């Protein structure tokens, strides 16, 4: 189990590092997903260490995976819209920022 506990630690480090150093937005999202996986791994390792095998962390991680795919989907949809807007502004300098406050 030490292997997986260390793996969780290393993945957490990679995710954190990626999140703070990556400047590309999609990459930052990937790093966040790696980070979440590390946390899930910690839960499951604890379930495996418990005697007998503990089902509660399994249920927690299942819930977590579905929540993560939802947040990732929202983030990606938002990203595609932002990219589309930036592209419009790139090609058409007259198109200023639309909307705004109010």
């Amino acid at each position, binding site marked *: 189990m030490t292997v997986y506990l260390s793996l969780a630690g290393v993945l*957490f480090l990679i995710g954190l590092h990626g*999140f703070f150093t990556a400047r590309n*937005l999609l990459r*930052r*999202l990937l790093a*966040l997903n790696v*980070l*979440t996986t590390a*946390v899930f791994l*910690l*839960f499951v390792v*604890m379930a495996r*260490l*418990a005697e007998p095998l*503990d089902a*509660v*962390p399994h249920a*927690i991680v299942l*819930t*977590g995976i579905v*929540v993560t795919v*939802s*947040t990732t989907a*929202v*983030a990606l949809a*938002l*990203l595609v*819209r*932002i990219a589309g*807007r930036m592209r419009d502004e790139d090609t058409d300098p007259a198109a200023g*920022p*639309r*909307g*705004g*406050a*109010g």
Partner: protein
Amino acid sequence: MIPGTAGPVVLFSLPLAAAIVVFIRPRWSVPVTLGTGAVLLAVALWLVGVVLQQGGWRQDIGGWTAPLGIGWNVDGLSATMLLLNAAVGLAGAAFHAARPAPPATARDPRFFWPLWLFLWGGLNALFLAADLFNVYVALEFVSIASVGLIGLVGGSAQAAAWRYLLATLLGSTIYLLGVALLYGRYAALDLALLAEGVEPDLVTAVAAALMTLGLLLKAAIFPLHFWLPAAHGRAPPAVSAVLSAVVIAAGYYLLVRLWFGPFAPLLGTGVATLLGLLGAAAVLWGGLLALMQRHLKMLIAYSTVSQFGYGLLVFPLVAAGAAHPAWAGAVMLVLAHGLAKAALFLAAGAIILRHGIGRLEALGGDQRGAVVAWVAFAVASASLVGLPPTGGFVGKWWLAQAALASGGYFWLAVLMLGTAFTAAYLWRALQAAVEPGWESGGEPPTLSPALGLGALLLALSAAALGLAAPLIARLLDAGPGVSG
């Protein structure tokens, strides 16, 4: 069965059910939302009454007790927050329903209503939750709904929504890591159960640090506030109101729950002072930046950063032994801030609709159609600054009493200085009303009087909180702070 257990069921289920109805039948949106809001407000008021009479309780879900099952926590603190959510939710919905139809060229926010009700339900779930993982799911629920609502107007608001989403997701992940450690240490996720068994050891300390960090990020406490002003400043007015008044308060609410619940044994002078210093820095830095804003909504958004700093002052004051007045004062301030801040954002929304622009120097001149909004703005400002007899005054008074009783003169100074800042930036905003401004020439747009009215009602209730102070002190005795 305790009389009152039906209350949380209604508060939890009704907004979600209404969200489904509104999603399936958009044309019923406005009546369904307003009707739901009225019921929720009534139930929340009734719940406050029940808690006043018989104290708080915990109610199991599915008939399973902790540690296996999860439960809801009803006490003075959660009832207060549920009431705040209902009041702001209803006022915001009324404002959004009464706003003039957007021009045909603008994006039509078709999905405002289901998102609004989802946010409402998520916040209620959060305030009721007594289980750390249930809190995580509710936090994500609230985050997605907030992101959707911020992004509704399109344009640069979507970039702000993205930054908010990333910050808040990072916060939840860090929080969840803390939850994992606590579960590994104690095999429990229930707040009450943890509070009984927690020992001040390394694992608990690390878990506490992680969860606090995650929640500080979500509550936008200095120096983790960077995402807030853009998100709150660019969202539609009703959305800004609920985000600043309730969503931020939710992060703070969880901090209070944790530190006066399971983590109470860890709340030494060092930790408390650190949190207090963060709060002090937030009060001053947020105040300073608010003073420098040129856009009305950005000014109010920075004010949120500043005002939640006061909330953190509760930790050093409680650690120094002045538990009762400090605790009641901080919660009172959060409540008064919520009502007043929502009033400010709604009033600002009405004022900006009237003038067509949000820059401070453009808001003067002819105020026909915006008088009620300006009155609401002034009353809310009075509460935010802390003029007697408003709720803001009582909250600050209690905090000051606590500081005097425990010899915390530094915190008293922060309180005073912050008040001076608040007065200064709100005065700037109010002054803009009476200056000449930019005359557009044409007739002012006709606005529904309901726009300003909701803001006025919220502002008046913030002010009236001061009169209800004894009642609120008694209500909060049923909270977790008594043991602190």
